[in-house]
């Protein structure tokens, strides 16, 4: 009976939802700490079950694909916040555009160069290029770039957790921790995880972070396919 269960696509879809809900509860339990986003818990739990049962990823995906299917509409949905941010950034559009373009270019450029020198695997380097893009876009984009979508997701989440950890003390030490600078850096370098950290720091930081995250994702999604 157990082995039949493990072959059932519905079981894997159900397990994924359960893992996500556990992740959400754990996140709340830890006071919405940016360091354990629900998605990370969800991935770890589902991966652990796959490892323990020895079920191949392909079998899992027969159920997982039903949730995966929603990624498309969710990416299209980014137009809604983007439209609001375009209004909000009118006042400082040049400064914000420069900060986003150069800031994200620096971090991604450096990561790509280091990966190329150090690891030298084309697929890994292509995946590295999507590291500063919010996860749904990174996953979609990495497939297009000849990268590995599962790896893209891992890079993005790890960057997010690192960024939430490193950026606030870094900018404080450098005395560049105005709400706009802090929010924008978190959004550009640490996207969604950075934004949840920015929410803890203040509403202004949160607004800048969410805007920077959306704009960076759009910019990279449009530019990277032509550059890689």
């Amino acid at each position: 009976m157990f082995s039949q269960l493990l072959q059932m696509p519905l079981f894997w879809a159900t397990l994924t939802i359960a893992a996500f809900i556990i992740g959400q509860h754990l996140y709340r339990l830890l006071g919405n700490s940016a360091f354990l986003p629900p998605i990370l818990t969800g991935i770890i739990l589902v991966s652990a079950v796959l490892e323990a049962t020895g079920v191949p990823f392909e079998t899992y995906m027969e159920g997982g694909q039903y949730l995966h299917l929603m990624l498309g509409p969710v990416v299209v949905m980014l137009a809604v916040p983007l439209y609001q941010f375009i209004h909000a950034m009118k006042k400082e559009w040049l400064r914000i555009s420069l900060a986003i373009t150069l800031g994200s270019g620096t971090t991604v450029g450096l990561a790509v160069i280091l990966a190329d020198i150090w690891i030298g695997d084309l697929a890994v380097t292509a995946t590295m290029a999507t590291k500063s893009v919010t996860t749904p876009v990174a996953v979609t984009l990495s497939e297009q770039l000849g990268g590995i979508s599962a790896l893209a997701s891992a890079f993005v989440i790890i960057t997010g957790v690192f960024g939430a950890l490193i950026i606030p003390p870094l900018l404080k030490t450098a005395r560049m921790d105005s709400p706009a600078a802090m929010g924008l850096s978190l959004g550009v370098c640490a996207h969604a995880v950075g934004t949840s950290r920015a929410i803890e720091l203040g509403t202004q930081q949160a607004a800048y972070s969410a805007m920077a995250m959306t704009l960076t994702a759009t910019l990279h999604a449009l530019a990277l396919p032509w550059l890689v």
Partner: protein
Amino acid sequence: MTGLLILLLFLVAGNLIQAQFTLPVPGSIIGMLLLLFFLVLRGRTPSSLTDISKTLSPLLPLFIIPVSVGIVTQKALLEENGVALLVILAVSLIPGALVCAFIMNWKRKS
């Protein structure tokens, strides 16, 4: 539900355009730009889109879990390069964040 239909229609349009012109940009991104263009032309966000956005946004991480679990297929790569990848991800953040913050603070009046 109208909001979801709008999203799906724009997604289908984006995918069609991507396939027709074999563009390197993903269809969903083209769909997003089309929707953005539509919103700019319209001058405001229809309430159906605001509603679906409120419904789907909290679920976003859930939709990403399946593809992310694919990390179990990358064990060999991670065993070999895991540490290097972590170092690259951490190190590359620092100049990026500083450049961003510098531009945001540069000659700022207030």
